[in-house]
């Protein structure tokens, strides 16, 4: 036996020699696959965590020293409550806060303005504002001196190129207004809210600017020393009498938490698919390298190494690859995370106007755990199987022909098929569990069907021989020589195809449903808004005098004023939309959905509400039920007339008539208008533009433009999906290339024999390509079927997470293009192995020296 002292260095030396020498390609493939899967998992984890960090930071910044918050949605809390609550003996301090998002004139970006009571204890310290010459603005009176004074975050000031004493122009409800910069906010405290895209004003100045006199968004309450928060919360609730909700600081982000949880679950699924494919890839690459090293291991065993030592060498190689691959993956993941950030932020459906930035991207223990787990999975997949090969096979005995044909496992396909059918029929299974089970069972079915498929090929070999002269008689023999590798490759590619197939259907379904939604609601109307629809920038409201001018314009047949705001409902922020049901209802389109909308509108006009399907599902409130909303006038109950569609996040939407809205909430202007004209709309719009130009620039969006915008919006969603799909396809392609490389390496003797028997180099290349094609065809058939199955839970998850139930639509042209791409990727990945196959000539050395 070799002494223990020398085993490790010798093993390392042999591993390094192998990695840099004859097996460099296989080691590189393993390294790349580990790095890619770790990068995918960590980047998505980092991006979703960044959104969470931004939310926590924003919540913390808005909370300040407060421990409890009194909120009532965008409708607001009566201002009088501030003093009432502040006077309670258990309350140390109660301070009001208003948040408003206004468009900036100078740049196409929104600005979050926070209104604070600057006279409250600690406010100025909290702000850390600097005035002229960088001197801290400690005296609030300097800000209170003028109603248009604003403190601007340093990052926004730098972006706009303004400094102390300068001015910014914002779109207020009354029209454009100029605000004077009286100080800059250091990058801490409140300035960290909304990723620094923030400004601060005196709360009462902001009230006036937003025409919200008498209301604030939230009251931040600090408990007196020794007071239990739970007791204080109960006391505050009693005091607000249903007009507001009392919550712990940070609870406002619960809606975001739900979104992020959903997002992170999606991230985990994507990362699991990537890790699965990378694991298969590592297995294929390492087993190929081990096959090639069998003579070397045989020599080691003849010189005194135990088979266990050989297994340890392989484990050592895998560990080294895991470490290097994970390190590379973490580095790449950090870079990729910033690429994913904007899309993931928007997918969270919380920060509409703000995106997390690189300062929010931070490695957490969980990130490292996810990355290391993925790396370990790949390394274990790459080490266990090959180590088994290395310890069980002794190359010097491997000269006799092995028995042909894989062991038959007739039961496994049946078990997987029955399992799939059962999962598809269980009605109450959670969609994520359904998706995971179907993926696992589908992969199992695909892998286990390879053996029977190859035996089927054997049965039709005479026909193949006639159909493909000179090639058909050998079709599939390469795969049959390594049935386990072939099964793994088919399973991996099947999963990739199924996943992308489901993504394509999801994307087509979302796009089509969105188009149907915008086309069918009010087909002949024109949307009038202060900014474009589907625009992140759409924060400005239409001013009341502008609306009055539009109503008066000649040629205007009808106007539906709409207002959208958020209200708290069972601890979550829900979108509340007020519209003129009596105007819009009869003008709905002619589709079945539009007729339903019209029928619901009649009840809404009478004071009922309608809810979106997402709202109905989330809160289990359906037509005929009642729901209770906190309004500035106290708790009010509303009868639900029906369910409609709406895209407003997982919490959904509540629709009510504008008169109902106005009876309970205060509003200034409208979020948008729907406009119907008599005859040609062009001169009417020209007239409106002329009449309102001086006061507020308007955007008019007709049906075709709205559809184009909706398509563009849906396309943005596609980017993330297709990015992930492309990565999965790349991994799948590498998996196939690796399998075929392994096949060529393992079959060198056989390929050389075929050359000796008269096979032309081109025939051998075509044989490898045909094997690749066979894998692709098997995987395409199985993957497409599995993809169809996965679509149902995927659509369900989408509806739950994004709040828009979508109808299943398939874009057949895209699907065909994708399948052609798969075929091309598979054949492309087979080119190098095919090239290697041409070079096989030497039959005298059955194994590589």
């Amino acid at each position, binding site marked *: 036996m070799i002494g223990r002292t020398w085993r490790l260095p010798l093993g390392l030396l042999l591993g390094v020699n192998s990695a840099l020498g004859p097996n460099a390609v296989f080691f590189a493939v393993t390294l790349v696959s580990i790095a890619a899967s770790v990068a995918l998992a960590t980047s998505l984890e980092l991006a979703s965590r960044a959104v969470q960090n931004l939310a926590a930071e924003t919540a913390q910044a808005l909370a300040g020293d407060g421990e409890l918050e009194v909120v009532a949605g965008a409708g607001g809390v009566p201002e009088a409550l501030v003093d009432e609550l502040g006077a309670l003996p258990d309350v140390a301090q109660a301070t009001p806060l208003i948040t408003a998002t206004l468009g900036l004139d100078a740049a196409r970006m929104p600005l979050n303005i926070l209104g604070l009571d600057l006279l409250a204890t600690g406010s100025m310290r909290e702000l850390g504002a600097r005035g002229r010459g960088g001197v801290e603005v400690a005296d609030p009176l300097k800000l209170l001196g003028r109603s248009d004074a604003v403190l601007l975050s340093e990052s926004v000031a730098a972006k706009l190129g303004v400094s102390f004493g300068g001015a910014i122009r914002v779109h207020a409800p009354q029209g454009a207004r100029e605000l004077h910069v009286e100080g800059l906010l250091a990058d801490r405290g409140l300035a960290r809210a909304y990723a620094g895209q923030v400004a601060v004003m005196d709360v009462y100045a902001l009230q006036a600017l937003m025409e919200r006199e008498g209301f604030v968004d939230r009251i931040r309450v600090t408990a007196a020393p020794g007071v239990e928060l739970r007791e204080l919360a109960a006391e505050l609730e009693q005091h607000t009498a249903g007009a507001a909700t009392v919550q712990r600081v940070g609870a406002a982000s619960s809606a975001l938490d739900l979104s992020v949880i959903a997002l992170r679950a999606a991230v985990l699924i994507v990362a699991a698919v990537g890790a699965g494919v990378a694991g298969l890839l590592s297995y294929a690459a390492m087993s190929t390298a081990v096959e090639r090293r069998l003579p070397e291991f045989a020599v080691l065993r003849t010189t005194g190494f135990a088979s266990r030592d050989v297994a340890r060498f392989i484990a050592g190689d895998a560990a080294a690859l895991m470490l290097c691959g994970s390190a590379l993956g973490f580095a790449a993941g950090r870079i990729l995370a910033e690429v994913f950030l904007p899309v993931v932020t928007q997918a969270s459906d919380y920060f509409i106007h703000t995106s997390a930035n690189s300062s929010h991207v931070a490695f957490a223990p969980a990130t490292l755990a996810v990355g290391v787990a993925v790396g370990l999975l790949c390394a274990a997949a790459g080490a266990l199987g090959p180590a088994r090969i290395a310890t069980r096979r002794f190359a010097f005995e491997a*000269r*006799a*022909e*092995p*028995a*042909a*044909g894989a062991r038959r496992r007739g039961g496994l396909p049946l078990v997987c098929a029955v399992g799939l059918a059962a999962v598809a029929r269980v009605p109450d299974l959670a969609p994520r569990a359904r998706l995971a089970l179907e993926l696992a069972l589908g992969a199992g079915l695909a892998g286990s069907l390879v053996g029977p498929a190859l035996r089927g090929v054997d049965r039709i*070999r*005479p026909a193949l*021989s*006639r159909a493909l*002269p*000179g090639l058909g*008689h*050998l079709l599939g*023999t*390469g795969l*049959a*020589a390594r049935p386990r590798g072939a099964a793994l490759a088919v399973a991996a590619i099947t999963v990739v195809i199924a996943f992308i197939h489901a993504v394509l259907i999801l994307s087509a379904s979302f796009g089509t449903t969105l188009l149907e939604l915008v086309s069918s609601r009010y087909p002949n109307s024109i949307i009038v808004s202060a900014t474009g629809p589907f625009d992140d920038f759409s924060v400005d409201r239409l001013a009341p005098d502008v609306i009055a001018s539009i109503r008066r314009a000649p040629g205007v047949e009808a106007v539906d004023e709409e207002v959208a705001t958020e209200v708290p409902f069972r601890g979550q922020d829900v979108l509340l939309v007020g519209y003129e049901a009596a105007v819009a209802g009869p003008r709905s389109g002619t589709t079945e959905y539009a007729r339903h909308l019209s029928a619901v509108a009649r009840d809404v006009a009478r004071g009922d509400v309608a809810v979106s399907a997402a709202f109905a599902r989330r809160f289990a409130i359906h037509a005929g039920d009642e729901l209770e909303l906190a309004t500035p006038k106290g708790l009010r109950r509303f009868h639900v007339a029906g369910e409609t569609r709406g895209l407003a996040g997982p919490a959904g939407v509540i629709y009510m008539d504008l008169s109902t809205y106005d009876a309970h909430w205060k509003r200034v202007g409208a979020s948008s208008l729907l406009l119907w004209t008599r005859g040609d709309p062009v001169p009417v719009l020209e007239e409106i533009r002329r009449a309102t130009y001086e006061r507020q620039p308007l955007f008019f969006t007709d049906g075709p433009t709205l559809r184009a915008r909706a398509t563009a919006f849906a396309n943005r969603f596609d980017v993330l999906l297709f990015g992930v799909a492309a990565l999965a396809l790349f991994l799948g392609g590498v998996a196939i290339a690796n399998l075929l490389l392994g096949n060529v390496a393992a079959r060198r*003797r*056989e390929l*050389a*024999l*075929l*050359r*000796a*028997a*008269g*096979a*032309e*180099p*081109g*025939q051998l290349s075509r044989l490898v390509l045909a094997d690749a094609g066979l894998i692709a065809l098997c995987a395409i058939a199985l993957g497409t079927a599995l993809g169809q199955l996965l679509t149902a839970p995927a659509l369900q998850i989408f509806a739950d997470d994004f709040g828009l139930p979508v109808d299943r639509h398939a874009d057949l042209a895209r699907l065909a293009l994708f399948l052609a791409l798969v075929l091309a990727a598979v054949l492309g990945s087979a080119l190098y192995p095919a090239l290697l196959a041409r070079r096989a*000539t*030497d*039959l*005298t050395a*059955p194994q590589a020296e």
Partner: protein
Amino acid sequence: MVSANPAVCAAELDVVYGSGETAVHALRGLSLRVERGQFVVVRGKSGSGKTTLLHVAAGLRRPTAGRVAVDGVELSRQSERESARFRRRHIGLVYQFFNLVSTLSVEHNVALPLLMDGRSIAEVRPRVRELMDRLELAGFEARGPGELSGGQMQRVAIARALVASPVLVLADEPTGNLDSGTGRAVLGLFRELCSERGTTLVMMTHDAEAAAWADRVIELRDGAVADDLTVGLRVRA
């Protein structure tokens, strides 16, 4: 008897592996002529150039210099594709380690060169069955190579080498992996093929007994012919 169109004609063959100081001369100016129907045994120590000569004669490797022709066709001037086509139609190869395709049946293994040539199994089956009968392999058509003994596998390899009725059969240590009895049977079979069918057989071997079955024994040393002996007496099993 010297014919105008010998089975193998090699002239001034040089094969060099590598270059510079590490260059290895596997064949050095080797010239050889093998007449049709001859059973030639090529002997020599390891590294004497036997296998290189086999590969050059089969068109699997181009010589660095010199020419080689089989049945009057100069292989050294052919493209890879042309030499592959020529090989499957006119040359059969037998190896020490059988080299059968493990995933194909015995019948398909035997038919391989013809199938490579674009012919269907149905078309070539009579010829395959005839050879299998002749080599006592009848009944093994559907079996896999893993189900055969060493002697049976080597007979399958020989059947494959003969299936296209080649002008030349090249064998590299065909008895090296067989027990003595089976090895003798294989040598007897080769002898019969040469005598009855006029097949030319060139066999590379270390086996001293093999020389007793041959018409001619060539001794290679350092890549060149060291001795060339025509044997008058044939030994029968």
